[in-house]
Every structure is written in C-alpha cells, then in structure tokens.
C-alpha cells in the first residue's frame, strides 16, 4: 500500500499531464483528420489529372491488388479508374513507392484504358538532391514515359530521349535517381497490369 502511495505521490503530475495531453491530441486529431485525408486525396487527384486530363473522376476499384516487392515483402496498391464525364473508363492511376538516392520516392503512374501504354508519371514525394536528382520532376525525363508501352523499361546513359519506347535515357549526374524511378515503375507496372488482367478488368475485350 505504501509503495502504491509513494508511486502516486511521485507520478501524479506525469499521469495527469499524460491524460490531459492525450485527450487534447485525440480531440485535435479527430477534428483535423478528415482534412488531412482530403489533402492527400486532392494531391493524388491533381497529379493524376495532369496525366489523364480528360478524366472527370478517379474511382478506387473494389478488388485488392498486391504487388511483390521482392525479399518476401508485399504491398497493397490502391488502383483507381479514371472515368470521363459520361462514366466511361479512360485510364488507370495509382501511387507507387520506391527507394531514391536519399529518401523514399512516391510517384503517381497512369496508364490508358487498355493498360497497354503508360500515360506517364508524376512525383508525389521525393527528397532527391537539388539540382541533380530532383530533375526526375523535369519534363525531359518524365516525357520519355508518356505514351511508352507497358513493359520493363531499360535505363541507358546515352540515347535519344525523344524516341518513345522502352529505352529510357538517364538524367546526367543523377543516375541513381533515374534508376530509382525506372526500378520503381518496373516493380509495380507489370504486376498491376497482370493483376488487373487476372481480375478481368482489362483484356478479354474490356
């Protein structure tokens, strides 16, 4: 009994403060969480809309898409249908994540309705080196994926960046960041395509 009394005498302030601060944080989180989630969705939609400008809405598909990242790691991908004003499917968009030079990079990928050609990618988050790796946000590099066939892309240090195919020309001075983008896209793109095909969402005349 004395031990409990001693414990309470010593720690009552800490316990009370923890309770008060906890309630304060819970209340603020409940208040702001919808806004935080809306911000994340709005950001994804902004980027995806730039890739599929004809889209009117992006609708998450019900079925689950799991991508194998290698070394026993798997991740769930939230794939969205890009629908025009009439509700017709005009493309697909989803967020992917991979390791960059200094930090994670998160990209939005978009493909056409048949999932045969890539509509391109945009950067949701990256912390690549300013002036070098952050050029993955530049049109020179991004445009190489615009209209490229959905297949495994190969990174080259030299080549014609204006030719749209599976050969991607790296950013000068930022090979690691270029590789990171290509590797991340290669990891996700074909697996998502395969999963959608298995689910009957693409192919078979759809």
């Amino acid at each position: 009994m004395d031990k409990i009394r001693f414990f309470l005498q010593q720690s009552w302030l800490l316990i009370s403060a923890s309770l008060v601060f906890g309630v304060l944080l819970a209340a603020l989180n409940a208040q702001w969480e919808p806004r935080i989630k809306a911000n994340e969705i709005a950001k994804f939609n902004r980027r995806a809309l730039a890739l599929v400008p004809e889209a009117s809405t992006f609708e998450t598909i019900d079925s689950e898409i799991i991508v194998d990242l290698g070394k026993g790691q798997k991740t769930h991908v939230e794939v969205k249908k890009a629908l025009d004003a009439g509700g017709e499917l005009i493309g697909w968009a989803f967020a992917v994540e991979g390791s960059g030079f200094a930090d994670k990079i998160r990209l939005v990928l978009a493909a056409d309705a048949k999932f045969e050609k890539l509509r391109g990618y945009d950067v949701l988050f990256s912390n690549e080196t300013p002036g070098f790796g952050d050029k993955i946000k530049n049109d020179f590099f991004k445009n190489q994926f615009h209209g490229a066939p959905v297949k495994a892309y190969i990174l080259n240090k030299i080549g014609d960046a204006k030719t749209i195919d599976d050969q991607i020309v790296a950013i000068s001075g930022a090979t690691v960041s270029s590789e990171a983008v290509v590797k991340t896209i290669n990891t996700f793109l074909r697996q998502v395509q395969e999963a959608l095909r298995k689910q009957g969402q693409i192919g078979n005349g759809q």
Partner: protein
Amino acid sequence: MANNDGKTLSPGNVLLAGLWRENPVLRLLLGMCPTLAVTAAVKPALTMGCSVIFVLLCSNIVVSLMRNLLKPHLRILMFTLTIATFVTIADLFLKAFQPDMSEALGPYIPLIIVNCIIICRAEACASKNGLFISMIDAFGMGVGFTLTLCVLASIREVLATGMIFERPVLPVAGDSGGWFVPWAAMGMPIGAFVTLGLLLAGVNLITRRGKG
C-alpha cells in the same frame, strides 16, 4: 527576480538575449539540425521558425505554470512529454492547413521534439521563472531562431536559384539572356555548412570588434 548571475531579469533584457546576446543559432549553436536541413529556401525556413516559436511558447507556458509541482528526477520526462504534445499539434496543423509545407519539411517538424533549444529554455528559464518572463524568453528565442534561419535561407535560395520566396530576383542565364548562373551547391548540404560557417565568422568578428 534574478538570474543565476544575480542580475535582474528585465523583460527587455530577456527579449534581446534571444535576438542577439544568446541567439540560439549564432551564439549558443543550438538547433543545428533544422538550421542546416531546412534553409535551402525561405518558405520552409519561415515555417520551421514559426513552428518552433509555437512549441517554445506553449512548452514554456506549461513548464512555468507547473514549475513548483515538478519532481527533480521527473522534470526531463515532463518537459519531453509537454514538448512532444505541442510538436504533434504543430505537425497535425501543418498537415491539415499547409500540406505542401508539411511535405517539404518532412521529418524535421516531428524532430523539433529533440531540438535542444526547446528543452534548454524549459530547463534554464521556464522551470525557474514566472509566466511572463518565460513567455518573453520563448518569444525572444523563437524569433531569434526564426530570423537567423530566414537570413541563412535567403542567402542560400538567392545563390542556388536566383529567387526569394520562389520569386525571381536575379536574371538567370538562359534563353532570356540573364547573367546569373544558379549555384546548385548552395541548395545542397555543403551550401548550408559554408553559409552557416561564414555567418558565424561574421558574428564573431562583430562581437570581437564590439569588445575591443
């Protein structure tokens, strides 16, 4: 009211201490992590500074109010709990109302929890002084920190991009025929170290001349 040296603490003295005499970055060399990491541009530096002012002010108020109830061996735990709460509030606020800034600052907002300036002021000032002096101290230190970050960020942003607040101030060389060649290194960590070093050297020079 007196400080450790027996000198009277006047609100004006406390305020000026944070701005110059005991400037957290330039004189105490505290908070070096955000100073080096978020000063590539003025916007994130200003956001970081405002977040630190908010956390410093709130934690100093809470610590000062409960200073007579603090058990010596539990005080650091109480400081950390208080600071972590207000940092989480700042982080949630930025995510909700300034999502782009929140993303640009990345982990550096949550890392304010381990920023030495906050715990230093809680221990050195708020746990020993009344509410008013603690608030003035937090404000002075916070504004001193913010101003230093902004000066550092202005120099780096101009030299790295030719812009301030993302608005062009120098004609960048290119198709439009400008003369300024952006100095990419200033936007990188090396630029932060070099600029901070030169700024510290300048402050030391001014201080020595003042003493002489």
